[in-house]
């Protein structure tokens, strides 16, 4: 047997994570029910080890396992994003879990399993691997969404996520089956070669196959009209889990979409461009307009993440190198803003899990100036105010779309960004201007505070050196087979 066909370097990061899941479960078992600290530390160590492996094997893998996975820079870049999110939610999580009396060791192993699935989604060069990665990620997320079994809304969130998620998976696999029927393979290289040579992207089963594939993927991205689950799930799920769910799986879904559609973007043809155009315009408009009058910060952030999926679609639609690299940069900054904002949201929540009112933020600017300043960084970053990272993400993606000729769509996107200023700034207005409603003080939790500070630093840092990060992203996109 030729072992060089099984180059383990290509899947080194998910392998470390898979082994780490077992380790964390074992540590949790041995350390007993009363003490979850060892499991948390083990999980942090696993994430750091995986990140070290990811950096050490950056863009050295190449295609292996009979063309199933590719350990290229693209996979490495996304792995680093997923691991950063995992590190932050594992670092910040215990305080929240303790507060709600749901500090189970499974939290850590489920987060790691989910990240392992995402790593396979980003590395897969075969629809089979992408499908399996997506399912590994989703199954862990269904459980995480219902991680608070005593609360009905958490249970409801996981039920909705499960039913709608597996419904969408049904469409995704049917799409894969039809693509397989047309080209006789689930290999992505064959897929793009077929589209490049076929001339008609709707020949035979291909049109229906691509349509169903798109439905499955856009569901995971929470693109309108497949976004209905996301506000309910983000709202009902435990907030540490919402922070994780709104950031990493969205990045993973875009990684998979780029893997599938970036190479054959040119040959997909006008009808698909039109459909994506409409989806992008609808997604940002519906997301932003729905976010306007949300009283709950969690629902507001959920709709804002729908809107951001719309902006990100511009990069897919542009189909050029800057568009793809822009998506990578955008996601790298977006995950920190979202994890940070959700974490601050549960830190300041004083009304219990059921109510996440924007009024919680009243006077935060005076009660906890540093925390309020960091929340402002996240809000301004999500608006896209220079020189924060969010601005450059939007700049690159919008520029790519203009280069590809979608001027009107960019006009819609910019108008949408202007609308979004209203609800992001409202949080800041409440923090600095609203009268105190005699709220109890916010707990001082060093680890969680450190996680939020790390998010804020990354948002600022990525805004200071956007060019060099974009170069890394460009190299990552260029390294795709």
């Amino acid at each position, binding site marked *: 047997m030729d072992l060089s066909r099984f180059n383990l370097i290509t899947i080194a990061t998910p392998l470390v994570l898979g082994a780490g899941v077992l380790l964390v479960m074992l540590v949790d078992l041995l350390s007993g029910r009363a003490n979850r600290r060892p499991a948390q530390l083990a999980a942090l160590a696993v994430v750091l080890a995986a990140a070290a492996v990811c950096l050490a094997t950056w863009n050295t893998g190449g295609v292996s396992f009979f063309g199933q996975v590719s350990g290229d820079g693209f996979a490495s870049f996304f792995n680093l994003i997923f691991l950063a999110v995992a590190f932050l939610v594992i670092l910040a999580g215990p305080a929240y879990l303790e507060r709600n009396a749901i500090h189970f060791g499974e939290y850590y192993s489920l987060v790691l399993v989910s990240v392992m699935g995402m790593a396979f989604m980003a590395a897969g060069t075969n629809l089979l691997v992408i499908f399996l990665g997506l399912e590994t990620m989703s199954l862990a997320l269904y459980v995480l969404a219902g991680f608070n*079994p005593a609360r*009905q809304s958490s249970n409801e969130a996981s*039920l909705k996520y499960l039913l709608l998620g597996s419904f969408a998976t049904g469409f995704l696999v049917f799409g894969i089956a*039809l693509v397989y029927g047309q080209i006789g393979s*689930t290999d992505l290289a064959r897929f793009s070669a077929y589209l490049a040579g076929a001339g008609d992207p709707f020949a035979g089963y291909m049109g229906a196959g691509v349509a169903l594939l798109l439905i499955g993927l856009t569901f995971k991205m929470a693109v309108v009209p497949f976004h209905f689950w996301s506000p309910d799930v983000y709202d009902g799920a435990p907030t540490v889990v919402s922070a994780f769910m709104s950031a990493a799986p969205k990045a993973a879904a875009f990684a998979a979409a780029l893997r599938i559609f970036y190479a054959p973007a040119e040959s997909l043809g006008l009808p698909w461009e039109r459909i994506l155009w409409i989806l992008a315009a609808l997604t940002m408009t519906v997301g932003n307009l729905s976010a306007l009058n949300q009283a709950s910060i969690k629902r507001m952030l959920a709709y804002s993440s729908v809107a951001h999926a719309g902006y990100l679609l511009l990069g897919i639609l542009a189909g050029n190198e800057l568009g793809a690299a822009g998506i990578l940069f955008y996601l790298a900054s977006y995950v920190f803003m979202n994890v940070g904002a959700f974490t601050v949201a549960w830190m300041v929540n004083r009304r219990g899990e059921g109510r996440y009112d924007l009024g919680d933020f009243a006077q935060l600017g005076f009660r906890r100036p540093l925390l309020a300043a960091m929340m402002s960084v996240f809000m301004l970053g999500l608006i896209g105010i220079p020189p924060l990272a969010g601005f450059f993400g939007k700049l690159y993606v919008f520029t790519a779309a203009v280069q590809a000729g979608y001027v009107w769509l960019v006009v819609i996107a910019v108008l949408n960004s202007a609308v979004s200023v209203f609800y992001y700034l409202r949080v800041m207005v409440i923090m600095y201007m609203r009268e105190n409603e005699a709220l109890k003080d916010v707990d001082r939790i060093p680890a969680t505070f450190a996680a939020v500070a790390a998010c804020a630093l990354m948002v600022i840092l990525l805004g200071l050196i956007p060019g060099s990060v974009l170069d890394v992203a460009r190299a990552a996109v260029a390294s795709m087979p």
Partner: protein
Amino acid sequence: MIISLNHYLVLAALLFSIGVAGVLTRRNAIIIFASIELMMNAVNLAFVAFARHWGDVGGQIFVFFIIAVAAAEVAVGLAIIVVLFRHRETVNIDKVNLLKW
């Protein structure tokens, strides 16, 4: 009569549509879940038919993975539905309405 690829595909499409209709119209969480399983099995049928058509085992291997994933989904899904039942003594999803936009 010779049973061709198209016969299998029509059957798969029919089963898939029955599954979709079941998800959209039924209100019992367990029936909805069974409908989703029906969709998955329709896909399996299509995969096997295509694999035969192409003379390629790739499609059949894919079916094994779909079966495994569907089993895992059932394990997680039924657990969630059991928790739902403990909370509300019903699995009717119209009664599951705490979260609304």
